[in-house]
């Protein structure tokens, strides 16, 4: 696997920021995720968490345990010495979405603006395998890359004060899922019954940077069934192979 030129920056008193070439690029993300996986496996003393977002990585550490300069030496050595083995194997998870009017409150306006049929919209939205470029903005919010060009649309001029948890939306060149009720300026096109974030779990999100997702169109009945399965802890995430 290619080695990139990484810039190491001291960021505050307890974090090191690592910058790859500033591009949204699958091969850069793959290199960062692979490196992150190696660092996690090495269990380096003092690191509290590693945050991968697009073309950068933030290594948070406890400065009572390790000094920034020492940690940077360790990080550089690990990057230089990593062999070409791919450690990171991302998973592709299916995310069921109901595009009914009751959930996709902005979908009809969206289709009118685009002069597009609903079936065409759903086909375009569901045929892409989206890449998770990171998590942020809200707990459990996925930065997804790969939206079809035909579905690009400027954000709403007036944001909604309350977008419901699970809402699937499109804003600018991105599509995303609201993990909690929150204000938001994207066009709501549907809803997923899945919980994107569970604060009571040790691993609140089931996805991480480098994983992939595929949307699958479901009916209202299927939506209700999955909700019941989730509430009773009987839902199994479906991996796309």
């Amino acid at each position, binding site marked *: 696997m290619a080695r990139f030129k990484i810039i190491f920056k001291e960021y505050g008193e307890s974090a090191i920021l690592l910058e790859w070439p500033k591009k949204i690029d699958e091969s850069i993300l793959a290199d960062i995720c692979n490196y992150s996986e190696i660092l996690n496996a090495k269990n380096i003393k003092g690191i509290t968490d590693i945050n991968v977002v697009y073309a950068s990585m933030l290594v*948070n550490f406890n400065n009572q345990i390790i000094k920034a*300069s020492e940690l940077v030496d360790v990080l550089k050595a690990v990057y230089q010495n990593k062999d070409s083995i791919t450690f990171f194997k991302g998973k592709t998870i299916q995310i069921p979405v109901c595009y009914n009017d009751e959930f996709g409150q902005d979908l009809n306006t969206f289709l009118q603006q685009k002069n597009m049929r609903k079936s065409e919209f759903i086909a375009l939205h569901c045929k892409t395998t989206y890449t998770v470029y*990171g998590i942020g903005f809200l*707990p459990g919010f996925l930065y997804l890359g790969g939206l079809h060009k035909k579905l690009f649309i400027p954000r709403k001029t007036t944001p909604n004060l309350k977008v419901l948890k699970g809402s699937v939306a499109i804003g600018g060149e991105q599509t995303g899922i609201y993990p909690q009720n929150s204000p938001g300026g994207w066009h709501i096109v549907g809803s997923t019954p899945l919980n994107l974030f569970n604060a009571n779990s040790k691993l609140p999100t089931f996805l991480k940077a480098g994983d992939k997702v595929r949307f699958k169109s479901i009916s209202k009945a299927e939506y209700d069934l999955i909700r019941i399965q989730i509430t009773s802890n009987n839902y199994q995430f479906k991996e796309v192979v």
Partner: protein
Amino acid sequence: MIKVISPGFYTSVQDMGRIGFRNQGVPTSGCLDSVSANLANLLVNNTNECALLEITMFGPKLKFLQSYAIAIVGAYMEPKLNEKVIANNCLIQVNANDVLSFGKLKKGVRAYLAIGGGIDSSKILSSRSQFYPITTNAKIEKNDCLTVQVKRNPTNQLMNASVANKVDFYDKNKIQVSKGPDFEIFEKEDLAQLFNKKFSVSNNNDRMGYQLNELLFRHSKSLITSPVIPGTVQFLPNGKLVVLMKDGQTTGGYPRILQLTELSIAILAQKKVGDEFYFELTPTINLT
């Protein structure tokens, strides 16, 4: 147990925050002024990890249902025990049915009330810090009952001890910063005014971030979304500066031009709307 008779303006349970979950998009949270919070915990013989109350601007009214050792450090809000004024910065023994209330805010913004043993709310993602939607509520509410961990008796030496923040903690008008990761994308001359211009806290300030009143200059530099941390100064395209605080989001796309230290975050957290200060640059270690 402690009963909340009235919650005050914004009183929340805080500790050192959620460490290790920023990669899930979870803000760190925790005490904004960790310096005062640590001193309060010290007085009641708690470790720094113990959860306490962060009281903002206007204090709550609390009834103690058991006897406790308590201490208040940080902003001075005329604390009263059963209507009698008590002091900040020392250990106070309270008895069952004693009522703690607060008067006017006289100095600073945030007071920290530590209780011997520490508040024993359930930990979510390894922290008791209140932050919605990780915790059910963002702050304490009327009629809440706060439980306290098994009390550790204060040692005799602490009975008469007092603490204080450094003399100029509240009046300090210099906020120490280092260069943020995106400082270099601007011309040095353009950013010079960052260090000779007076800035002030706008009324748009909370635990997520402090927007400053003064504008720098307009720019059109946008970045690919990247991690941010508490104390990061974001430079918005319209020229505004926003200092991210501990409930601030984990990622952002605005240039990160300055970075506050933990101590600077504490000092800023005690500044009111309109309070003025200068940024003072401290050197960063060159890592590359």
